[in-house]
């Protein structure tokens, strides 16, 4: 492999990881921006998406899981919303953090009860198995699919948020909830819709990640921290922030692993600390 080829592949690795982080953190950040709600159970919903897809695809194949897992996670999200989150919307952050922290415990043990302690795997769809040649390098086709899907969803979300009426309503809600309500926007319904969407995206991230990584009860914990870092670096509630944050964290982790593996974990936390000290509300705060 040529030297340029090597760095092209590493760049693709970085893009792929970044977009996976984007799928995971965009729901988290929009839920936070709109509802001021800190959902630590987001990682558990991601794991739920992966587990459901393993079970469903055993019967219906990968694409069955791909379609059904986000739906299933959204349904669970609706249940959580009606049972818990609606009550906590106006509670302080502390209580939200604690309840959703409790949910992590509950979900992790439910995964163990439902799917066992042994780690599972999911095969990529035959359509995207093997390798393809892009930019003169050979690269796993499935990872190209992850990149394409991430970009499509990123573009779709940007369009919805900036060009549609629903997007305007969401932005109004983020900017000033009371004012939006005064203007006749049914804020609660917008919130509900956004929450479901956020959960579905977490579930989608789970299905998409399952063929790349292994499916384990604690898989949610291991992505929760990077996702939170993305959200906080980018600025809570900001789509642009989530994009920039994802790429910063994804590229630091990928290139950190290549250049200085021992420092990679450290650099991510150092970046988070630096951003918080210099720009306490993140790089692109949704509200000025």
């Amino acid at each position, binding site marked *: 492999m040529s030297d340029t080829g090597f760095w092209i592949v590493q760049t693709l*690795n970085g893009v792929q990881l970044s977009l996976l982080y984007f799928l995971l953190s965009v729901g988290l950040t929009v839920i936070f921006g709109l509802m001021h709600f800190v959902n630590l159970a987001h990682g558990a919903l991601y794991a739920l998406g992966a587990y459901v897809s393993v079970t469903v695809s055993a019967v219906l194949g990968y694409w069955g899981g791909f379609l059904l897992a986000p739906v299933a996670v959204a349904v669970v999200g609706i249940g959580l919303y009606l049972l818990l989150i609606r009550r906590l919307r106006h509670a302080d952050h502390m209580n939200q953090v604690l309840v959703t922290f409790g949910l992590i415990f509950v979900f992790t043990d439910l995964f*163990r009860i439902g799917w066992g302690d042994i780690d599972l795997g999911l095969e990529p769809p035959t359509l995207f198995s093997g390798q393809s040649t892009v930019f003169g390098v050979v690269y796993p086709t499935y*990872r190209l699919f992850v990149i394409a899907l991430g970009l499509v969803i990123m573009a779709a979300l940007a369009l919805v948020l900036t060009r549609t009426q629903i997007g305007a309503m969401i932005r109004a809600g983020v900017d000033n909830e009371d004012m939006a309500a005064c203007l006749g926007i049914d804020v609660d319904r917008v919130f509900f819709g956004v929450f479901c969407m956020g959960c579905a995206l977490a579930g989608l991230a789970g299905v998409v990640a399952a063929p790349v990584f292994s499916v384990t009860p604690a898989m949610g914990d291991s992505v929760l921290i990077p996702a939170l870092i993305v959200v906080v670096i980018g600025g809570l509630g900001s789509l642009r922030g989530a994009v920039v944050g994802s790429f910063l964290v994804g590229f630091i982790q990928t290139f950190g692993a290549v250049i200085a593996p021992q420092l990679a974990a450290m650099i991510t936390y150092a970046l988070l600390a630096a951003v918080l000290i210099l720009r306490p509300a993140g790089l692109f705060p949704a509200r000025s």
Partner: protein
Amino acid sequence: MSFRPTTRATALCAAITVGALSPLAAQAKTSVGLLLPYSGVFAALGNEIEAGFTVAMEAAGATDQFDIIKEDTEVKPPVGLAKARKLVLEDEVDVIVGVVSSGVLGAMRDFVHDAEVPLLVANAGNDHATGEQCSPYITRVSFSNAQINRPMGDWLAGSGVKTAYIMAADYAAGHQTMAAFKESFTAAGGEIVGEEYTPFRKTKDFGPYLTKAKASGAEAVYVFYAGGEAISFVKQYDSFGLKDQMGLYSGGFLTSPLYVNAEGPAAEGVITALHYMPTLDTPENKAFVDAYTAKYGKGPSEFAVQGYDAAHALLSSQADGETRGAELSAALSRYSANSPRGPISIDPATNNIVQNIYIYETVAGENGLTQRLIDTVENVQDAPNGCVL
């Protein structure tokens, strides 16, 4: 909602007193502390070892001879140590069986040594435990990291592979396995062209490392990964197309039957060395696999056979009439048998097991993936490495 510690304490005291009385009622029984992870990332391993242990006990009809007290070590060395102390000081067990994580073993080593309580290690492979930190009270019936990986260096060089790139999780087992492989591989004329230690349990995306391995131009990749990391690694290795370019070899649990099917077709062609494979064609193994499958509805793994042999070592010491302390330890370290994994014995110099190492390829079978035996390295024995018993 008030909390009354005094009532609670009384209730607890009562419970503990009752618990302490029961062993008295049956004096003849040997009490065994089963110290395994039942929660956390190693929970599946703990369950397998216990399953193997139970199969052996039931087959021997010896369940009644023992009082078995189970304790969960989680994956936390301090918890493991606290539970070991509890078993010895409160339950006053005669012998402790188990220990999956080397960290837990390291934490409790001095305690069992000083307390002179026999410990039968049923997994933890840290070389030092039967090397410089060996103890007459610690007998290992599982494996050591070097024992599995040293033969692979010779074998791989002998099979014509001249250059290897090595990768392992960045913790003690990763470093020990790689050191053993490196030593024998280079001694046999092989060359290590690059090495990488990835953050343990923190690495999900092996892409960046695999890209480096591919660029190194080595003929083979030699790795040490287990559990979830093994699944991620094998699948990502395949997805990057490395299979056509460089063979994947490992000494250890990369393609353990426990989760090899989660790796899917990506695992086909991977060559690993291990002390057991469920498809060994011996009468002992057939009997074991049948008994295990009949009870649990699935085949055993190498972890199950470790629990099985631990139970048999214990039974054999009982047959010698030894139930406590140094005598029990000595009886355990005299153990030898025709195990499902082939002939095994305990090395009197280190108390580590002496056993065959099987080099096998993972291949597609009728019911998912299975093993094809390539070579057997007989009676692999570790050097004492500073062990004085």
